[in-house]
């Protein structure tokens, strides 16, 4: 099997899994959900690290990679922190008084 064939399989299964999981998320949490998935897709940082840290990187690719690491680190850090900050606010009746 060619490597892209496998990749397409992975994509398809992950997309269906995503559909099934997201459908179950309560509309109550749609905003934190969006910031969480945003943080998760900032996994692009992995690709950015590979390009920036490479030995033979040219000035062009290193600069592009550098900006990409900055942008995706911002998303990782603010995405997870703000999701948690939002989720902390969701309290049931009774919890608030404790």
């Amino acid at each position: 099997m060619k490597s892209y064939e496998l990749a397409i399989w992975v994509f398809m299964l992950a997309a269906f899994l995503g559909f099934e999981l997201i459908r179950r998320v309560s509309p109550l949490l749609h905003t934190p959900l969006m910031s969480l998935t945003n943080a998760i897709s900032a996994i692009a940082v992995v690709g950015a690290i590979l390009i920036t840290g490479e030995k033979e990187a040219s000035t062009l690719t290193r600069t592009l990679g550098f900006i990409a690491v900055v942008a995706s680190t911002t998303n990782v850090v603010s995405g997870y922190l703000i999701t948690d900050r939002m989720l902390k606010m969701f309290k049931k009746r009774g919890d608030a008084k404790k």
Partner: protein
Amino acid sequence: MMESIFPALYILAAAGFILAIKWMSSPATARRGVIVGEIGMLLAVVGTLLRHEVVTYEWILIAFFIGSAIGVPVAYYMPMTAVPQRTAFSHACGALASALIGTAEYFRHMPHGVVMTALVLETLLGFLTCTASLMAFGKLQEVLPTRPITYPGQNIVNLGIFGLAVAIGVALILSPERTWLFPIFTVLSLVFGVLLIIPIGGADMPTVIALLNSYAGLSASAMGFVLDNKLLIVAGALDGSSGFILAVIMCRAMNRSFSNVLFGAFGTIQASAKEALERPVRSASPEEAAEILEAARSVVIIPGYGMAVAQAQHKLRELHDVLTKRGVEVCFAIHPVAGRMPGHMNVLLAEADVPYDRLVEMDEINPEFPRTDVALVIGANDVVNPAARLDKNSPIAGMPILNAYEAHTVMVIKRSMNPGFAGIDNDLYYMDKTLMLFGDAKSFVSGIVKELNAAVPVAS
């Protein structure tokens, strides 16, 4: 030996992301979800830093530092009302990262065939989502006008530019050696992103933000194909499907299609003859409103974007508390498209310490309205417009609404009689049982709360 650890770290990271989304299904487990998500991210980053291809660390560490220096203050000091803007901004960052990595990869390896196709898709979606998200950010921050801007032939121009970008993309796939095409391709994608958002009005932002979320995810997934990295494919596909589902939910909640949202320029003020017609309305003071609320057994509060603008959520929580103490059953009815992004109202009310079991979805609350004594509409307009249900010719015909008009009494807090974002007059305001409470939402609610507190204290 070491080499075999890295795939394992990536697989664990993917599992972490999947669990993170799974646990988001309920507020009880959601915070646990964030923690596994963070662990997944940490494993992936450490795993990548340790790979033998990565030899230069100084730039990476500087970039980590700058990214954190931006991200941490944003996360801690940003007011919750600015969440839609921040989300748009982070879509822009994510899409930019993905587009730049695609560009770097093009100049590095100049791939062919399937990989090049993925690369073109990655950069196209990345660049267009980047500028589109920045435009959405501008509109949400109100740096740019929130009303749609239209001109004759707009859709043709937009489609033309998109078509040209795609055509150049195809040319690049066929022969990647034509490097001079790449900058043109980039500029066209960037320009298309800007043009795409210009005709979209503020009220359509929930759908647009969700759709941009989906594009950013798909771009990241395409990057996974380019770099042959399954973790990127999985994370991007999860993000892409999440944004897509939210966009579908938003469209359904407005009874409109994607193309109508993107190209319909909804919200341009309709200069209809109807508006010239002055119809009588009944208005009331905070004292009168307080009396009615006090006598009610059940009250449903319907918040909209106006509540966020007026920052009235804390006052509403006080109203909720004081009425609950008096034995009135109070809950909040949340329309899926209320506000500027999916779930916007829930976050604002949760921040104001409203218990989340008091926030009720549209389908659950609608059957309750005929038994509701008072429906208090605050800063919402189109989502309670009975024309959606009753008038087949209305531009919002068929849009699911909160049936506030079925309540025994309706009270609407509103600044003036100006039409809402859809630019449509609302018959709800002219009904006999409707009382218009004119004024700023925050000060009006605080007036009601003051009256209730001044009235006879609760017999405990």
